[in-house]
């Protein structure tokens, strides 16, 4: 970029060349400004923080700090629950908290599909509008449900408080499902909400260290153990 700036000082530069360089350097400047601005918004408004992600990565090698963070997270969770409900959190209330406080949206139909089933489109639309009852109806009418359909069908049942049906749907998934990590997590929450804590423990124990929501799974396991 420095070369470009120096080039601008060349008295023999043409207007066209000058415009092209300005376009390029202005893009670099403003793109950088936007990234800075958006990092700030993502951090403050959406709680997505690059620094904390890097920190988390670095900390993965440090066992002591990792334990400290996990403990701090547990304490903050407990304090938050006590603050809001003034009662000690149970696995049931923690599971409810996870379900109620996480916005779950369907990302849209998978790529590569040329003729999308009308029911699938309607199911996704209803799901993202939080009309889970309607979404379930459309999922039921799907001719050929793929892995993604089964996962979101199960989620719709769970979010519609139909825990036994959600469990049944999650259990019907095979182990090769590419949503296996997500299914393990939500299936365990469904078990807890359906008062089947023993089964929840079995599924939570299957969540590996590298899996999604491992830390939360460990917290729930601890809570389940202390409530047995």
């Amino acid at each position: 970029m420095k070369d470009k700036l120096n080039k601008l000082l060349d008295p023999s530069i043409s207007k066209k060349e000058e415009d092209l360089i300005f376009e390029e350097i202005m893009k670099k400047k403003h793109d950088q400004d936007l990234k800075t601005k958006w990092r700030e918004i993502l951090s403050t408004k959406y709680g997505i923080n690059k620094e904390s992600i890097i920190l988390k990565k670095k900390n993965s090698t440090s066992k002591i700090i990792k334990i400290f963070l996990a403990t701090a997270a547990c304490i903050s969770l407990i304090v938050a629950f006590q603050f809001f409900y003034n009662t000690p959190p149970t696995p049931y209330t923690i599971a409810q908290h996870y379900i109620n406080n996480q916005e779950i949206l369907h990302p849209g139909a998978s790529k590569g599909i040329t003729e999308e089933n009308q029911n699938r489109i309607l199911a996704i639309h209803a799901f993202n509008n939080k009309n889970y009852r309607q979404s379930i109806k459309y999922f039921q009418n799907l001719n050929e449900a793929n892995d993604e359909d089964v996962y979101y069908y199960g989620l719709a049942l769970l979010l519609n408080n139909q825990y036994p049906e959600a469990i049944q749907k999650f259990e019907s998934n095979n182990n090769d499902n590419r949503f296996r990590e997500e299914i393990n997590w939500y299936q365990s929450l469904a078990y807890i909400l359906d008062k089947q804590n023993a089964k929840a423990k079995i599924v939570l124990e299957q969540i590996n260290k590298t899996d999604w929501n491992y830390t939360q799974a460990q917290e729930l396991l601890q809570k389940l153990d202390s409530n047995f």
Partner: protein
Amino acid sequence: MKHKNFGLNEASFEKLVIDLKKNDTYFFEQVFLKQFEETMNYLRREYRSSSEEAYDATMDTLIEFRTRFVDGKLQYGNLRFLFTKIASQMLLRNRKKNTAGIDGETFLSEDADTEPEDLQGLSQLNIAWKSLGEACKQLLTWHFYGKMKLSEIAEETQKTPATIRKQKERCVKKLKDQFGIKTIQSHEG
């Protein structure tokens, strides 16, 4: 259709483009920053990417999308699908760049990342930029970053194209003069 376009209808799509050309990103942020976490999750799930990789790729996708909007390269249709596709390619491009140092995929426009050697130039530009008045900043931003024609800017600001053309020349000269001063100072320093 609106779902495929992040809730945008055709009219709001047009408004988004007009806003971005004037570097007004408020509406764009309302629509696209909401997709950030969802896109990160998609990249982590589909490509087993780390959170950091997913964050960078999604951020690069936002920048790429803004560029495509102002370049008129995006059509109202299936923005959601395209956003996911570009995010995937950004991830793969970044991985490739980090491992082999090879330039980006042909599908993507020129790499918008800031290399370390660019930082000094950017800093120089930022200092010079501060010396400009608000009218100059707006004109140069709309024209060079928002890809607005001088005639469009003239219409928008209710001035004649000749006035705007002259104003642009003066603003460019002022910026170049500042570069010259800073360059001499840095050579002397």
